[in-house]
């Protein structure tokens, strides 16, 4: 490839190659108009390349952060972790996310569907929804004194089952204390084969004495506590 020297500076010369491209090269005592064949071309500054690389890196980091945040959010808020079935007799199933918030409620029988008519659990926690559903059941005449509420918890871990069981029993007991005397049963969910979906854990937090947990199919009723609440008027 031949080059014509187009411009000479102290440190470099501008050359035109036969392909119509202009180059900067080391000025080896060149003269304008001279034709050379073996110039030492200047290496193009990699600033643009680096800027592009940095931009790409920035986008990649931002995408990774977004993915991390989204994955975490998705796992915590958008994936069902636990299902809680309330059986009064209207049967209702609540789906909870990892944070214990109610994602969805569905009636499991005709009365359950009636109970949920016009009800939305949007942005409510499990305790509020449970109390509201019990309240609606009382109002609609499904639950009265001497009745029974079975809370079936399908949790992935024993610890979660224990925690939710304790919480729900305590809250319901407090909620119904002054209105109705009902029996509350907290049971661990088991599938058709009789297997619990709860993975046994080495360290299970001990439940307070006020909570009774029952394994339904095995008839292992740990304890039963009748909550008899005095009616202020009665």
């Amino acid at each position, binding site marked *: 490839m031949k080059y014509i020297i187009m411009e000479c500076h102290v440190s*470099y010369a501008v050359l035109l190659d*036969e*392909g*119509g491209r*202009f180059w*900067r090269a080391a000025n080896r005592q060149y003269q304008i*108009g*001279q034709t050379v064949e073996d110039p*030492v071309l*200047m290496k193009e500054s990699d600033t643009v390349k680096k800027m592009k690389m940095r931009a790409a890196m920035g986008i990649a980091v931002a995408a990774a952060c977004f993915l991390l945040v989204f994955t975490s959010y998705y796992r915590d808020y958008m994936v069902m972790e636990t299902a809680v079935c309330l059986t009064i007799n209207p049967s209702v199933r609540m789906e909870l996310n990892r944070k214990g918030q109610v994602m969805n409620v569905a009636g499991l029988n005709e009365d359950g569907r009636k109970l949920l008519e016009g009800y939305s659990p949007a942005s409510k926690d499990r305790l509020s929804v449970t109390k509201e559903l019990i309240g609606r059941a009382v109002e609609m005449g499904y639950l009265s004194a001497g009745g029974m509420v079975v809370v079936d918890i399908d949790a992935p871990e024993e610890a979660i089952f224990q925690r939710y069981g304790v919480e729900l029993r305590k809250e319901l007991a407090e909620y119904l204390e002054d209105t109705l005397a009902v029996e509350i049963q907290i049971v661990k969910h088991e599938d058709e084969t009789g297997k619990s979906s709860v993975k046994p854990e080495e360290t299970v937090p001990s439940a307070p004495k006020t909570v009774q947990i029952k394994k339904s199919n095995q008839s292992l009723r740990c304890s039963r506590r009748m909550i008899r609440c005095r009616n202020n008027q009665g």
Partner: protein
Amino acid sequence: MNEEHVLVGQVYEAKEDMEAADRLISSYLPFVKSETAKYLKRPLIEENDDELSIAMIAFHEAIRGYAKGRGAFLPFASVLIKNRLTDYMRRERKHRGHLSLDMPLEEGGDTLGMRLPGQEDEQEACDRRDATKSEIEELAGQLARFGVSFTDVAENCPRQKRTVCACRKIMEYAGGNPELLEEFLRTGRIPVTRLSRECHVERKTLERHRKYLIALFLICTNGYEIIRGHLKYVLKGGADQ
């Protein structure tokens, strides 16, 4: 510390202004020479040392590539000079054992190139160089009307094969449409819309390489036979070499 601050200011000015770059390089010529001599482990013979030219262009590259985050300028330039000289030495090693046409055959006598048959004689080469020089000077004058220098053109010249091909397509089209060149000379504007439509080249590409295209358009106009002769392969629509 203050001196370094001043130098960094000069470097940043030299990035934008070629005259400032020349001034800075001239004032730091002793530094460049000393770095080169240190690398070569011998004193420089200024007239003949290609290494000094390499070191100077490396210094120029250091100016263009320097950023404040890269530490002090002179150590940065020193590293770049050494790297460039190493590259040059490696390249030269490949040609070791080859004779240079400019090498004198005897003390004060003719060079090898002068003795070889079929070589252009000195007078002819000198005439040709002068003719080329006058064309280049005329072209430089025309470019100056557009506020463009050859350095600007070199900086604006596309490097990507696809863009080079697009520019050649435009040049070919301009060569075949003299009225387009006349319009360009009359108005001083590149008809971007027409070229983009006719050559199927993105408008953005034309705008991005405007200075380069100005130089090519001027070369396509009458009066630059030697330069056009140099580019004949491209003007005939040849592929990239």
